[in-house]
């Protein structure tokens, strides 16, 4: 299955390694954002697109990942790079009891209970000042100042690992079981699949890699606050929308969706006149996509092809 489509990933891989050297600092920044979002989208897709458990609260893991390093620095002045371990690990660990609670709920109720969890985390981190530093957040001085290349290659490595792990899981027994749970949970149980256990097998890496992206964010942006990293609209919801746009349940859909989202956001943000409405345009695009291409660009690729390439029978 993977052997056929190896040309595109290889080309992308080469581009990814070479292009940043040709870009200015500003564009390098955009590229880094793209890679961060690709990582997050892939992580979400593992739980939502493959296992069918749509979480509206993944900002929880992103924020935990970011605060892993943030708290280390805030309390003990330890370098936030240690957060790259602490962040994802504690996000994954917290995911376990969370999953055990929320996986008892189905469909939209699961989605919204995760939303509630994300919001609870945000409120706690905003208000419990002795613990988190409160709404002012955590600020550090950047390890490499304005120099972006090192950050780029770190996040690129993270992204590739994430994609690789997701692909490996997808084409293994785990992947089959995830899809079975997504398609019909009751049938899956009747086939001997312990659905809660396997949902956890999807949740934990999903939380881990989202947390890893968050931990990187802490180190790269050098400033985090609860309002940003635990944000419902800008993080949780956006993770879902980027995956939807590209195609949930596909391997490359999240990559496409994340790229389109970040680039669109930047393009709109900088064009005068449209600047204020970039979120509106994005929301409208999402509405149209859901109405007409509900499985995302890659998910509906056949439908799209048929629109542009008329079948030869017509003549």
């Amino acid at each position: 299955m993977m052997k056929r489509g190896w040309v595109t990933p290889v080309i992308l891989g080469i581009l990814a390694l070479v292009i940043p050297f040709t870009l200015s600092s500003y564009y390098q920044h955009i590229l880094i954002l793209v890679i961060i979002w690709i990582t997050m989208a892939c992580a979400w897709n593992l739980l939502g697109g493959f296992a069918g458990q749509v979480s509206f609260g993944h900002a929880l893991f992103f924020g935990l990942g970011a605060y892993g390093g943030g708290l280390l620095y805030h309390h003990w002045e330890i370098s936030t790079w240690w957060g790259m371990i602490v962040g994802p690990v504690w996000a994954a660990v917290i995911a376990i009891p969370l999953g055990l609670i929320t996986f008892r709920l189905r469909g939209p109720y699961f989605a919204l209970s995760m939303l509630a969890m994300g919001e609870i985390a945000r409120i706690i981190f905003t208000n419990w000042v002795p613990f988190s530093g409160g709404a002012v957040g955590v600020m550090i001085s950047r390890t490499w100042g304005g120099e972006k290349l090192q950050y780029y290659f770190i996040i690129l490595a993270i992204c590739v690992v994430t994609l690789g792990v997701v692909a490996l899981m997808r084409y293994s027994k785990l992947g089959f079981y995830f899809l079975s749970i997504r398609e019909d949970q009751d049938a899956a149980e009747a086939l001997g699949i312990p659905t809660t256990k396997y949902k956890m097998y999807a949740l934990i890496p999903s939380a881990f890699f989202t947390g890893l992206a968050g931990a990187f964010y802490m180190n790269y942006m050098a400033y985090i606050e609860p309002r940003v990293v635990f944000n419902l609209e800008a993080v949780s919801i956006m993770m879902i929308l980027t995956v939807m746009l590209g195609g949930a349940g596909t391997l490359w859909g999240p990559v496409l969706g994340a790229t389109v989202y970040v680039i669109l956001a930047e393009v709109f943000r900088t064009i005068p006149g449209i600047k204020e409405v970039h979120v509106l345009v994005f929301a409208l695009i999402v509405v149209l996509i859901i109405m007409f291409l509900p499985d995302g660009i890659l998910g509906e690729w056949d439908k799209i092809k048929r629109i542009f390439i008329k079948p030869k029978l017509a003549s």
Partner: protein
Amino acid sequence: MEFFFESLIEGLLLGGIYAVVAVGMTLIMGVMKIINLAHGAIMVVAMYICYALFVTLGLNPYIGIFVAMPALFGIGYLLQRYSIRRVTEVITVLPETQVLLTLAIGMALIEIMRFIFTSNYQTVPVPGVSGKTLYLGEISMNVPMIIGFVVAIGLIMGLHLFITRTDLGKSIRATAQDPDAAKYMGVNTRNVTCLTFAIGSMLAAAGACLLLPAYYLFPDVGHAFTLKAFIVTILGGMGSTVGALSGGLVLGVAESLGASYWQMGYKDVIGFVIFILVLLFLPGGLKTVIGR
């Protein structure tokens, strides 16, 4: 002791308004089985309509409500008719597509409001009402909230009568219980779902206008309302007006007492915790306990 009663009453008043906001959502959820995350956005649109009327014509929200309600009735109808309905029949990879559509629609509406009115905080002070308090002995009560509470209860009772006594109400309940059977009985379910969404939006608009004299208005306030409405809906039980009322009151009181005795910032956590507890332990909501 007065402090307790004051918090309690404040909670009840707030709860009444939560209830009228939620009753629209519970209707939509009960009949159409869809989760409408655009609810808060609809409220914000209504509030801005009242604001615009206030700024241009000097009309206060208690009059503006009569413009906002039909406006949102229409907007809700159109949304359901031309957009949301499309998505309910399609089976997609992601099971929650319809929820996401309402979410995206909500986002779009809020952004449109932001574009027209900017992100600035606005207030709509109503002379003689806003900021006024009424004293019952030593206990103070916020006047706009009292008015809001009274009107809210009136609207909820009105809805209840409509649903139980009129033919259209019966059609709505039939569609809620079994859409196919309803179709066989001659109910135009397509029309019913559009009307239900319209009525739900109209009630959300009403709740929003009632809240306006007491709150700041800014585009993002919609999100908080959506979540509150949702919590009340789940707490009270889907599709139940009595549930929405009791759920609203419970949430209002819980939040009010929580803010008074614990800490202001954690007020919203209470709602979320209640939400999760209800989902886990009382999934049918309060209506199963009350028996309606």
